[in-house]
């Protein structure tokens, strides 16, 4: 781990990003734990749970953590640049293509189907995230899942206020009776 230089870190995360169609995390685990052995499996889980309790995409946070431990802020910068750079360029190109050809009937037809499937993907992600919580502590989790959904999804209330109302209460409950 100590031997990793910013350039290596950049290239490793670049490779992770480009493989990560439909979810980067499995590829990150394979590269960082199995192939490079920069993290032990336990390190990986612990670092990931730290990253999950912070705002921002987990995988971007993970790259910051791995980079920081290898060589400070230069490592973090290299890791994020590797992870974010190429996908941003690709998605801008896709956006430009959509802007050029999005008016074509064929493209519009395909996009309609694509958008419906993409919505289904998010339902599945939400269900996967909900499952362990509901199994372990339905009583303390369900009200907050439902509260967040109704307030933001159904009533379209601004997110900052909803978080300010729900999160402290939920955290206080977890503080009193740890899961």
């Amino acid at each position, binding site marked *: 781990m100590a031997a990793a230089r910013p350039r290596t870190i950049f290239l490793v995360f670049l490779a992770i990003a480009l493989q990560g*169609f439909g979810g980067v995390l499995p590829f990150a685990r394979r590269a960082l734990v199995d192939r490079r052995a920069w993290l032990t499996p336990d390190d990986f889980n612990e670092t990931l749970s730290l990253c999950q309790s912070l705002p921002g995409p987990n995988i971007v946070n993970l790259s910051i953590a791995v980079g920081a431990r290898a060589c400070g802020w230069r490592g973090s910068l290299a890791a994020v640049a590797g992870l*974010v750079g190429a996908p941003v360029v690709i998605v801008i190109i896709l956006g430009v293509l959509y802007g050029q050809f999005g008016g074509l009937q064929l493209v519009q*037809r395909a996009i309609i189907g*694509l958008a419906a499937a*993409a919505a289904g993907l998010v339902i599945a992600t939400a269900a996967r995230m909900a499952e362990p919580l509901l199994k372990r502590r339905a009583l303390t989790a369900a009200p907050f899942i439902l509260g967040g959904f109704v307030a933001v999804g159904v009533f379209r209330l601004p*997110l900052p206020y909803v978080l300010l109302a729900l999160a402290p209460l939920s955290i206080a409950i977890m503080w009193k009776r740890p899961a």
Partner: protein
Amino acid sequence: MSLAWPILRALAVQFSLLSLLAFGGANAVIPEIHRQSVAVHHWMTDKDFAALFAIAQSAPGPNFLISTLVGWKAAGIPGALVATAAMCSPSCLLTFWAVKAWDRHHDHPWRTAIGAGIAPVTVGLVFSSAYVLVRAADSSWRLGLVTAATAAIVYFTKLNPLWCLAAAALLGLTGVFGTP
């Protein structure tokens, strides 16, 4: 192209705030991104948003790419870069600082409580995102069926979700969902 400074400023402010609220990643803040870009700023329609989200999902990389595309739609390439930087920078700085602090003091009970407390709220927000996207994307029962099938396949099997996206796009090409 001249730079649209007011839009760039709005993008920077909006996404750097969302960056710090995005517990669980960009999927948790989709409803807020949607509200700001469709209802508040009128950068795009509901349908545009669903299309951009679909494009972001089918590109490789982390799932915050919807912010890149919203920035692009609002103010071109400069908008894309500003939105991306704003979506990443605050949470990255926070994480960098938190990792340093974490490696100094291990196992603080407050950290566990915050993580466990925020988790169910985050799940509720991801369900909200799904709801917003369903409302934008599913204009007929056939499209609803595609959404439901994708959700079931991805939830119950280990199939790479890209296959579902590709299949739905191909189905769309045949015209079974109509043309907008």
